[in-house]
């Protein structure tokens, strides 16, 4: 592979500096994140040592609680319950919000009529929607998931409306001339054009949804991370509160790395190869 050695380079360097620097470039961000998180833990540990209090446990104590909760199975049961609600609310919000957003974005008169509704729903506090949903529909799973979805839908609508406004009509015209079927139009013409907007709505959506799910669980469910946090709030057990919070944040991080990013890479594969 390498050209005949001229002799003025050490043998290691002849192997190809590009592959070495490539590996380093790939590792640097991971290392940076690891060092950064370690630094945060260290700072937290030092602070906990400086101000010792039951209300401010150090990272070691939180880790112990985490292990105990994992060992007796509670952690996974409650994480699972919350994750299920997050997933359900996410799917409902994305589907309903996308359909409404695309319709508003492609029908100007409908948009003019419904735009005030969107603004209204955008500004209703999450707590009000949750309380009303529980009063009207009872303390059940459907009311909980519906309330979370209703909180998220206006955001999705606004993003997807922008996406629909940015659709290129020439693709739709090509599809009309060549008589694409409805499913082909959605799958091959509409969704790929909306992909950046879907990705943006998903990203901001997941983060918002899981925070609202905790409130929903706190107010009217008997399992889930939100319920556990409320329980330990009454016991003033800060270590357990932090343990559950960090566990769920970790789960969301894993989902981001193992699901969201690969899906996004697949969806934009046609973009990355240079011309």
């Amino acid at each position, binding site marked *: 592979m390498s050209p005949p050695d001229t002799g003025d380079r050490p043998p290691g360097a002849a192997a190809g500096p590009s592959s070495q620097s490539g590996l380093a470039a790939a590792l640097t961000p991971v290392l940076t994140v690891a060092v950064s998180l370690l630094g945060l833990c260290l700072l937290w540990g030092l602070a906990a040592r400086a101000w010792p209090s039951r209300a401010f446990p150090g990272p070691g104590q939180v880790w112990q609680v985490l292990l105990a909760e994992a060992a007796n199975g509670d952690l996974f049961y409650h994480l699972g319950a919350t994750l299920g609600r997050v997933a359900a609310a996410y799917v409902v919000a994305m589907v309903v919000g996308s359909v409404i957003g695309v319709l508003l974005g492609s029908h100007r008169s409908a948009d003019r009529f419904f735009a005030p509704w969107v603004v209204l729903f955008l500004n209703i506090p999450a707590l009000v929607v949750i309380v009303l949903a529980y009063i009207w529909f009872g303390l059940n799973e459907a009311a909980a998931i519906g309330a979370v979805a209703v909180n998220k839908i206006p955001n999705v609508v606004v993003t997807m409306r922008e996406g629909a406004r940015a659709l290129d009509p*020439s693709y739709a015209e*090509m599809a009309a*001339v*060549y008589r*694409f079927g409805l499913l082909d139009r959605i799958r091959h*013409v509409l969704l790929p054009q909306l992909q950046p907007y879907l990705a943006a709505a998903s990203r901001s959506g997941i983060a918002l949804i899981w925070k609202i799910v905790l409130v929903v669980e706190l107010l009217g469910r008997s399992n889930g991370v939100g319920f556990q946090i409320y329980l330990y709030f009454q016991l003033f057990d800060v270590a357990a509160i932090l343990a559950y919070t960090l566990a769920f944040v970790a789960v969301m991080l894993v989902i981001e790395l193992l699901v969201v990013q690969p899906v996004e890479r697949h969806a934009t594969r046609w973009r990355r190869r240079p011309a």
Partner: protein
Amino acid sequence: MQPVGAAVPLRVDIAEKTFRSAQGVSITALQDLSFEVRQGEFACLLGPSGCGKTTTLRILLGLDKDFSGSFQLPEGGSDRIAAVFQEPVLLPWRTVEQNVRLALPKSLRTKNLDGLFDTLGLAGMRSLYPAELSLGLARRAALARAFATEPAVLFLDEPFASLDERTAERLRHLLLTVWSARPTTALMVTHNLREALMLSDRIIVLAQRPAHVLGMFDVRLPRHYRNPQVMSDLLRSFQQKFPGVA
């Protein structure tokens, strides 16, 4: 190769097409535009730019329904239409081959396209994305898509505009090759007289806006006789018949 349609011509009879601007100003783009393209004939719609050629094509493609008048598309074999637009309009997120196959009716989705891709010089590029193609190659892919559908009528809207002359010339020859293999009723919009003389059986000359037919110019000579000498003779006789056009 296959029998293509019955002897129904492409018949166009547009009484009027008017655009209304947001300020309420109305512009008549087409008025009393009527012509016919015979079965299996390659016709060119020639006219100054901005005279309403593309508007006519959009009406025939069914993309603009706000006009008065009527038109009849050739029928038979298939009732499908195909179009090559001013821009290639390939879906950037699908490969060249997927772009072509998506345009096919379900019954033809799996048909063998090797011959077509070979003729158009796209054999090695079926799995590339449109962003990886040059403009000339993207236009070849657009041609492949149009011909793969085996349409009853083919519309081309200045398909070789914005290409350098050498590439355009090569593509014109490729177009003739694939068209000759399966002569389809075709209507091509162009403002390039040489291109029209080289490709078509009949040139429909349009007047300035509002567009209507100024006259017809039939090129009866088989295409392989149209060498540079003959072309300049054709050019001269065209200019005698239509002084001041092009």
